[in-house]
């Protein structure tokens, strides 16, 4: 395991695109997080123009809600796509450089190869979760008065939700990369699926004609994003009648994890049966 991680680290250590994309992820995330409150309040102002009863401005950066809010904004599709593309590039590179062949020739097994990429995903997810946790903690501390430990810990399950989300989203990217093997094609089809195909299918399946309750929430991307569903903003509840998530439940994490296991198993079987 350690050996496989050492190998992976050598592969990315001086790979500029990797660091640029991970850097971009943080820039987008930081910008998004800083803008989030402003954007929400802008929305409130707009609504107030047409509403006889004025809605109050919202604050989203205080404990315990900051966990939920930041986890939500850090897992919207536009932000998540960056680490996913990193994974796609790192895997499809092995095919275009034919280094996967060379790794096998040198004595790596297909299982080890897959495991090394999964370990990489795990490490990236742990590091990103840690960093996000740190950022959230700092933002929370500076926006909350009268902090108690209980207040801080109350909604911290959302950071676990963030971890599950980013992990499973990268596993989905890994699935596309191993199946298609070509960098451009994988990125194009993955992006197309995440932003266009699944939302269309989602909408279609949600329609009461097909199924009253709809199986839409159980589609791969949606089941991943559903782990941290809405930010804890009271105005959403009042205007749109949404039920806000209390915490990240075990059952809601189960679906993306089942998908992840299915994707990994499929990739493994395909790797074993396909010539290199």
């Amino acid at each position: 395991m350690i050996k496989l991680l050492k190998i992976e680290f050598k592969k990315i250590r001086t790979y500029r695109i990797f660091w640029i994309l991970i850097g971009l992820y943080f820039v987008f995330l930081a910008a998004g997080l800083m803008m989030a409150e402003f954007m929400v309040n802008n929305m409130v102002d707009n609504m107030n123009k047409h509403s006889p009863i004025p809605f109050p401005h919202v604050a989203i950066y205080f404990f315990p809600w900051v966990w939920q809010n930041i986890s939500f904004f850090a897992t919207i599709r536009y932000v998540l796509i960056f680490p996913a593309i990193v994974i796609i590039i790192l895997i499809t590179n092995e095919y275009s450089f034919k280094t996967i062949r060379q790794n096998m020739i040198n004595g790596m097994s297909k299982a080890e190869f897959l495991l090394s990429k999964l370990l990489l995903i795990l490490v990236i997810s742990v590091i990103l979760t840690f960093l996000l946790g740190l950022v959230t903690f700092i933002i929370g501390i500076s926006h909350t008065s009268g902090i108690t430990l209980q207040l801080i810990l109350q909604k911290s399950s959302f950071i676990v939700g963030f971890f599950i989300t980013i992990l499973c989203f990268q596993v989905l990217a890994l699935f596309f990369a191993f199946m298609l093997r070509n960098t451009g094609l994988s990125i194009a089809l993955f992006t197309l699926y995440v932003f266009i195909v699944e939302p269309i299918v989602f909408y279609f399946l949600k329609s009461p004609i097909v199924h009253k309750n709809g199986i839409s929430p159980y589609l791969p991307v949606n089941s991943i994003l559903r782990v941290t569903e809405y930010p804890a903003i009271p105005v959403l509840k009042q205007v749109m009648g949404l039920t806000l998530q209390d915490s990240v439940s075990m059952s809601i994490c189960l679906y993306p994890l089942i998908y992840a296991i299915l994707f990994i198993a499929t990739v493994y079987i395909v790797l074993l049966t396909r010539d290199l």
Partner: protein
Amino acid sequence: MHSFCICNNPVLPASKIYCFSPFILHKLETVLSIRNISKRYGKIQAVDDLNLEVMKGQVFGLLGPNGSGKTTTLSVILELIRPGSGDFQWFGQPPSKASRKRIGSVIESPNFFPYLSPVNNLKIVADIKDLGYDDIGRVLNLTGLYERRNSRFRTFSFGMKQRLAVASALLGNPDILILDEPTNGLDPQGIAHIRELILLIAQQGITIIIASHLLDEIQKVCTHVAVLSKGKKLFDGEVSEVLAISDSYELSAENPAALSESIKAFPGYRSATVAGEKILVYFNSEVNPGELNRFLFAQGVILTHLAERKRSLEQHFLELLRDNA
């Protein structure tokens, strides 16, 4: 492995498969055995019921024209592709990642990370093979890349890339070296360098399997050879036997009928064809024209014409392929 094996010296005939180690005299072991391997791509039978045995210390050549199944065979024994049928063993064991770690190989193009330096690329190879990094300097020196050890692989010329592939294959002194067209695309200087390297490695007792479409190359470096055509093995054996250059002589005599009869008794006779008044006689071994003349004279045949006809190696190879098509 570090015993001194005279059979590895490509200059000596390798038929005496005995190895003189400091303590024991033992018979050489089988390194690779291929049994009835076939591989089909759609309509094309890439490898057709192939059987091969490679012994320790041999420099084994796979000789055949393009598309004869050499690379497919090497890909199968390196477990890159799965054979349609048949199986193979390394060191008498079913293939595994452990056996692959004892093999160094150069297959088709050099496969490395373009953005990494040779040293970092070789470190990855060393990690996979469970080796330390101490050997990296040696193999880079051996292949003349030490000066460029910290440049990115992307900046290398084709010849340098190929040499890095050889360096990577040599890392950690493998028991077997597999080379697929190792001199393909290299300039004459590069070709000479790689061939010298192969001979040097062979002298260290490392078994080498080398695929090539160049007869000249096989003859210069190999002890044993298998000739492939359309995925089938035509024959295999020692290079000196299989690729023996049979001389041919153009003869004519006062009595052509007597000549045709008498010549058949000459040692090493293979075949004869009549070309007008002359006959063209092929021999399996080198023939001294004086002896030939003396022999025929003793049989009562007086030659009126005797001329030696040398064929090029390539001509010979083509004949071998044609005869066995």
